[in-house]
C-alpha cells in the first residue's frame, strides 16, 4: 500500500496544500523542457579538493570554461587558462581578472556562477553528513558522468521506484509490505522521503554487510538543492547501514552532467565501507542506460503529455519548483527566498550521532 503526501516545509495558510501556493500549476509539469533551464547565482560543485593542484584542470558549467588550480594552496577558478593568449571577451560571471568566486567546503571545490558580487557562503547547500573541512578518504569519492541533462538525472534520482528495476541487483527489488512517499519543498529545495517496510534486502548489503534477513526496513531521503543541481541521497537500512551520499549533478553543458560524488560510509563495516562507494560506477551506468536515450526526448517542447503515477509526485514537484525558479530568474529575481545552508539534518532524518565532526 502506498501513501503519498506533498506539502511545503513551512505551510502557507493561504495556499491550498495541493499546490503549495505555487504560481505554476500542477498541469504545467508537462511543459517540462529541462534543457532550457539555466540556473544562476548559485554555487556549483566542480571538483574534489584533491583534484585541484598547481596544474590547471578544466571544468565547465553550462559550457562556461572554468580552469582550477592552486595558488599558494588556495583554489583559484578562472575562465582563462593561465597560458592562454586571451582573444575572447570576459564573461559577466567573473571579476576584472576573469576569476570566478570559489570556495572549498565539504572536501569539494565550489564555483559561483552568476553575479560575482552576489556570491555568499550562506548560499552553499547544507550537507551535514560530510566533514566541513573535507578529509574523507578518497575511496569514498568518485567522479562519474551522465550523457543527459542535469535535471533529467535529478528527476531520475527523486523517483526511487526506478531503483527497484534498474538497480535491483544493488539495492533490491520492488517487493515490500508497505511504502510511503512524502514530499516537502520550499522555493530552493525539494525533499522526498520514502519509507518501505519489509523491503527485499539490498544485495550489496547481503554480500558486503553480512545481512542475513530476507527483508529490511528502509527510509530513503532525496533532497535536491534546485539551483546547485545537488542532491543528498540518504538511505537508512534496518538491519543495515546508514548510507548518506552527496549526489551533485553539475551541468557541464545543458546535456552532459558531471557528478563528483561523496559517500560517507565511515560508520559501515570495513567491506561495505570500501565497496559501496564503488557501486556508484555501476549504478550510474545503469541510470545512463535509460537517461541517455530519454534526455534528447525532452529537448524540445511537445504537446504530448507525460503520464504520471502517484509515485511521481516528488518528480512533479521538482519540475514545478525548477520552472518556478527559472521563471523568477528570467524576470531578474535572483534572491534566495529560503536559506539552503541551514542545517537540514532534521529534514533528512540524519542520525547525527553517527556523523560528528
Amino acid at each position, binding site marked *: *500500500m*502506498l501513501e503519498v503526501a506533498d506539502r511545503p516545509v513551512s505551510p502557507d495558510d493561504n495556499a491550498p496544500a495541493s499546490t503549495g501556493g505555487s504560481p505554476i500549476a500542477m498541469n504545467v509539469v508537462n511543459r517540462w523542457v529541462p534543457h532550457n533551464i539555466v540556473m544562476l547565482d548559485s554555487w556549483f560543485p566542480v571538483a574534489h579538493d584533491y583534484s585541484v593542484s598547481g596544474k590547471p584542470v578544466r571544468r565547465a558549467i553550462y559550457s562556461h570554461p572554468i580552469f582550477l588550480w592552486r595558488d599558494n594552496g588556495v583554489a583559484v577558478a578562472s575562465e582563462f587558462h593561465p597560458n592562454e593568449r586571451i582573444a575572447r571577451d570576459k564573461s559577466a560571471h567573473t571579476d576584472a581578472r576573469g576569476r570566478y568566486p570559489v570556495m572549498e567546503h565539504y572536501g569539494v571545490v565550489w564555483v559561483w556562477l552568476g553575479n560575482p558580487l552576489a556570491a555568499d557562503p550562506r548560499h552553499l547547500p547544507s550537507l551535514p553528513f560530510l566533514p566541513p573541512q573535507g578529509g574523507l578518504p578518497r575511496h569514498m569519492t568518485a567522479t562519474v558522468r551522465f550523457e543527459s541533462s542535469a535535471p533529467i538525472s535529478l528527476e531520475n534520482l527523486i*523517483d526511487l*521506484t*526506478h531503483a*527497484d*528495476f*534498474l538497480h535491483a541487483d544493488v539495492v533490491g527489488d*520492488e517487493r*515490500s509490505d508497505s*511504502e510511503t512517499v512524502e514530499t516537502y519543498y520550499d522555493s530552493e529545495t525539494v525533499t522526498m522521503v520514502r519509507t518501505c517496510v519489509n523491503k527485499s534486502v539490498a544485495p550489496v548489503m547481503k554480500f558486503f554487510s553480512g545481512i542475513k534477513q530476507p527483508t529490511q526496513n528502509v527510509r530513503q531521503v532525496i533532497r535536491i538543492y534546485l539551483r546547485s543541481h545537488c542532491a543528498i541521497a540518504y538511505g537508512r537500512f534496518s538491519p543495515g547501514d546508514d548510507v548518506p551520499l552527496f549526489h551533485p549533478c553539475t551541468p557541464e553543458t545543458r546535456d552532459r552532467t558531471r557528478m563528483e560524488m561523496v559517500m560517507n560510509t565511515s560508520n559501515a563495516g570495513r567491506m561495505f565501507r570500501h565497496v559501496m562507494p564503488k557501486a556508484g560506477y555501476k549504478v550510474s551506468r545503469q541510470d545512463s*542506460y*535509460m537517461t541517455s*536515450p*530519454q534526455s534528447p*526526448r*525532452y529537448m524540445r517542447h511537445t504537446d*504530448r503529455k*507525460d*503520464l*504520471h*503515477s*502517484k*509515485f*511521481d509526485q516528488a518528480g512533479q514537484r521538482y519540475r514545478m519548483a525548477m520552472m518556478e525558479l527559472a521563471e523568477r530568474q528570467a524576470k531578474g529575481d535572483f534572491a534566495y527566498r529560503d536559506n539552503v545552508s541551514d542545517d537540514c539534518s532534521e529534514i533528512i532524518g540524519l542520525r547525527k550521532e553517527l556523523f560528528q565532526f
Partner: protein
Amino acid sequence: MSLATDLWWAVARSEEVTSKKPLSVDIGDQPVVLWRDNQGIARALEDRCPHRRAPLSLGCVRDNGLIQCGYHGWSYDGETGRLKEIPNMKDQQKFPPIYKANAFGVSEQAGFVRVCLNPKAEAPLSADPKYTYVGTVNVSCSHQEYLNALYDDPALVIAIRGVRFSPYLMAELHEEGGMLVMERNCQWNPLHWPSHFVAEFPLTLLTRTHPSTGETQLTLRDDQFNDLLHAVLSPVPSARGVTAVRWRAEMGVRHPGVRGAILRGINPLSVLATIDGSKLRTTKPTVSLHGEDLRATMLDAPHSAQDQTQAA
C-alpha cells in the same frame, strides 16, 4: 521524414521478433518496438514509454506477454497499448484509457513482420512462401537513393553469386499491376565477352517494386525462362537517413553445369551493407530519373499506386 500512415512496412524478419527480447526498429523517424506475446503474436508499439519517454525496447517481455519498461516497470498490452500494471500499486491496477502507448497495426506473412502506423489499416495479403536465405543490413543511404541505386545499377546494393549485371535493360521501368517493374540483362561471371559485344544474354533480373514502400521482388531467370532465384528485398526508411533492409531469398530451378553449382552455394544473394560512394556519385540516373516521374504518376493515380497491395 514524413511518411504516409497507411503503408505496411516489412520492418523485421519473423525470426527477429521473439518473446525473449524486444526489438527496436524505425519507420522513418518513428521508433517502433516489436516483440512476440505469450500467444506468439507479434506486437508493435511506439518505442517510447509515455511515462518518462524511455525506449520500451530497453525493457523486457514478461511471461504474461506484456512489455515492461525497464525504467520504472510500467507494463503495456501489445494489442491495445493500454497500461496494465505499475509495480507497487497493489491497490490500483485499472487505469484510464488515456494511459496507453501508441499501438500500431501488425501483420506477419511470408517470414516478414509488417507494421502499419495506422492500427486500423487493413493488412495486405501475400501469397509468397517463406524463403530460407535471410539477412538484415542497415545502409547509410536514404530510402529513395537506395531504390534509385537498385534501379540504376543493382551491383551498388546487391550481389548474386556468379552473376554480373549488365547495363542493358530487357524492359525499362514501367507500371504493371500497381508495381514498378523492370527487367535487366545479366551475364554469368567471370568469363564472358564484354556486354557491349554480346548478342544474347543468358540471364535476366526481373524486379517488381512497390511504388511507396520500395519492397521489391527479385527474380533471376535463365534464357530458358527458368526461375533460378527468388528474393524479396524490403528497404525501410529509418532514423538519421539510414535505410534498414531485410531480405529473404530462395533458390529456384537448378541451372545445369558449373555455373548453376556456383549459384547454388551457401548463400547466393548478398545485400551490401555499404554503398561505394564514388561509384554511386558517378552512376548515371538512367532508370531512376524516369522512375521518379513514373512513381509520381502512379502515386497520383487513385487506383494503382495507392492500392495497398504489397509486392505479392
